[in-house]
């Protein structure tokens, strides 16, 4: 199943990527060639094989429930474009 231009536009929108007219055909081709590889892999018979969730043969280490972080707000907010009363300010979002 090959991606159409409109599919790529939709994916770009979901990922908040601003693609211009010139980039669209190139990206569409590149994505289609990746999907081609996926198709090739889909064709392999995987009956009885457990889906792989992670390439490492390891399991998650857990940490104890302890507060180890202290308040570093001033340092973190020093790089923020805009703050007020301890809040990060962003362009207005309304649902």
């Amino acid at each position, binding site marked *: 199943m090959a991606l159409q231009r409109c599919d790529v536009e939709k994916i770009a929108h979901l990922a908040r990527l601003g693609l211009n007219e010139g980039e669209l055909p190139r990206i569409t081709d590149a994505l289609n060639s990746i999907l081609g590889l996926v198709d090739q892999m889909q064709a392999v018979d995987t009956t009885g094989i457990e889906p792989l969730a*992670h390439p490492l043969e390891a399991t998650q280490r*857990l940490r104890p429930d302890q507060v180890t*972080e202290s308040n570093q*707000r001033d340092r973190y907010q020093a790089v923020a474009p805009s703050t007020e009363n301890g*809040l*990060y300010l962003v362009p207005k979002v309304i649902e």
Partner: protein
Amino acid sequence: MQWEVVIGLEIHTQLATQSKIFSGSATTFGSEPNTQASLVDLGMPGVLPVLNQEAVRMACMFGLAIDAEIGPRNVFARKNYFYPDLPKGYQISQMDLPIVGKGHLDIALEDGTLKRIGVTRAHLEEDAGKSLHEDFNGATGIDLNRAGTPLLEIVSEPDMRSAKEAVAYVKAIHALVRYLGICDGNMAEGSLRCDCNVSVRPKGQVEFGTRCEIKNVNSFRFIERAINSEIQRQIDLIEDGGKVVQETRLYDPNKDETRSMRSKEEANDYRYFPDPDLLPVVIEPSFLETVRASLPELPTQKVERFQSQYGLSAYDANVLASSREQADYFEQVASIGGDAKLAANWVMVELGSLLNKLGVEIDQSPVSAELLGGMLQRIRDNTISGKIAKTVFEAMAAGEGDADSIIESKGLKQVTDTGAIDKMLDEVLAANAEQVEQYRAADEAKRGKMFGFFVGQAMKASKGKANPGQVNQLLKAKLEG
């Protein structure tokens, strides 16, 4: 047309951990904005999430309590969407392999019967931050203190058929997570939030109708009202020839209506994939057994025990066991007072209305279980009547001491001396000679009401302190004689 309502719920419970699910930041509610947001919570490049073992343990507790399958291996996935209070651009959640699988929970319906509600799954995820839309010169303020707070999202089967059933289910989940101590259940602070999926279909139809999701309803009362108004909206729409569109809606309590939030189709394209930052989580059987052994007595078990051990009705047992604090309080009062039914009545009626009036929970009750139990002892040994006990109870609520000292200082001790009561009754009858004559002339049918008059006068004369049983007995003898 007869309509059938179909409801399924997604309940988000904030787990009561000290630190966040993937970072060592504190989870305390109400702190100064962004003082509990670390580099991990801010989604800074180069940081890695590390899973909190307590969140895993709490999820397992819940799973065991609803008789669910707990997979030996669960996997975290990224749910991708853009919103400013989600700094990474994705929420770490679980998709294909959640920690808790299929389980169930029984709810008590109004007629006392039980209905089993299926739980599809429950998965661990991180909470988002908060967007403050008040005016910051046209900008939105972002507080990331809540970002990364552990959530257990509990997804039900579409098993509920009315708003009342939905509320009963939310209450059952609320009671359960509080019994387990895995969530404080504070809905006003957002510790337990509910998304309601509602659809209607003609009665008898097998396929579900198109559903709408009402987001983030945060009180029992609003859940019921939001669902009912959404049901009515869908029925009106269909009966007017329209079609329900699948979408997310918000409930406005002021207007008592739901309104469209956004079309779900686009927003729903979350492009889940396994999070490469986190490895599969393995739950060892030995670990599960340790968790199982640590489970407290659960609400349904307590309800059964209250009925068999104390002889309470199913209704009373359900009310008393609705929270662990209330159940413990009741058992303490019953044990000190020595009469479970009397204790049940006092806890549900007098204490209940006192707490209601004060607007406090039972753990902040001005009358402790020791005080109430002590007072019940005085009722049982006839020191005071049930009626005088209300006066004593009010005084205890006002902080005037324990029952014994209040009875003493207010002179409320019941008069049980037959001679004294006898004398008092003679005085009452002498003062109401006319009524006595009327009573004696009246036929049996009319006497009942008239007798009550004399009892009332006698109790008034004794300031309520005469033993009611003795008053009745002696009065009867005097009037008949």
